[in-house]
């Protein structure tokens, strides 16, 4: 696992930076529309970044694309319903 992280340091650091920026943007705003926009953009980035990484490593297939989409939809579903209860 550590070997894998060290081989793809730039990829993981950029992912962590974008996710952290997304968190700060969503957390610092009180505008519900903006918060949802940021989370949708972050989810889109996470899926696209992951798929691109697989593409560069020549191990991309349809199942992997579906996996990223499903996890993204899972996260978005939770965020949408959470925001509707506060």
């Amino acid at each position, binding site marked *: 696992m550590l070997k894998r992280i060290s081989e793809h340091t730039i990829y993981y650091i950029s992912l962590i930076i974008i996710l952290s920026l997304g968190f700060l943007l969503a957390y610092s705003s009180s505008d519900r529309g903006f918060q949802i926009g940021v989370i949708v953009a972050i989810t889109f980035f996470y899926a696209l970044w992951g798929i691109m990484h697989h593409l560069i490593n020549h191990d991309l297939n349809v199942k*992997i694309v579906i996996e990223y989409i499903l996890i993204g939809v899972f996260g978005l579903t939770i965020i949408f319903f959470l925001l509707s209860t506060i």
Partner: protein
Amino acid sequence: MKDFLSHLFIPKESNNHRAKILHHTNLFLVIVFLLLASFLIQRVRVSFPSVLGIKVNISFEELLSLTNKERQEAGVDPLIINEKLSEAAAKKAQDMFEYNYWAHNSPVGKTPWIFIKSSGYEYIYAGENLARGFTTADGAIEAWMASPDHRNNMLSSNYKDVGFAVKLGEINGEETVLIVQELGNLQMPADGDKAQEIATAKNTDTFSRSVQAVRQQPLINVSSLSSNIYFIFILVFILTFMLDMIIIEKKKIMRFVGHNIDHILYLLLVLVLIGVWSRGVII
């Protein structure tokens, strides 16, 4: 049962070396389940608010005493409840529900100062803190104290009076609880003791009439129920991805699946947002 759980959460031959819960069909089923459960919760919430609703227990007295406790600890004079500021706070909360917004300035440009002045409070200094989704007074005060701007407002020696409003209502079709804190001062701070004494006497009298509480006690608190369900789901998936990654690394099995670290990082972001947002928000 043990076999079923290990088949669901541990990668092995029987599940093609990928925890069964992480298979596409099961991920899809989990999403469908979450959608159905959330819709069901919303329906029950609308039809049976006494069973499932927002549990609120906030008294103005508590808000005032917690605010003054913080001021006392910071070495600042305590605030006095002012009925006109409480009226301004109530008008502000009502306006937010009526015109569907959550901000210091309304969509038509009404500032907090308009509400304060229209209630007859001719301030020298004025400030406003807003909180949404908090169901206890200490939760809101704690969040205000954690934010530098709100903390400065609460602890400012420029203010002598305070007014609160706690209202339940709907913004954009979502039931929520709003807490409005209006702060003000009618005198220049250097004006001396006399003006302050007058204000104290006058407002002590109004406070006894202003003590109110907003309480709603449904059988089940919808906000904690939802956030707990979401929290558990996300946590289960994070742990399953971790376990999956560790076991597969150990067994050195080649698979063509997404990167578990990506999923863990993304789900951690969702988990942190659940933790932060389920407490309520302030502006």
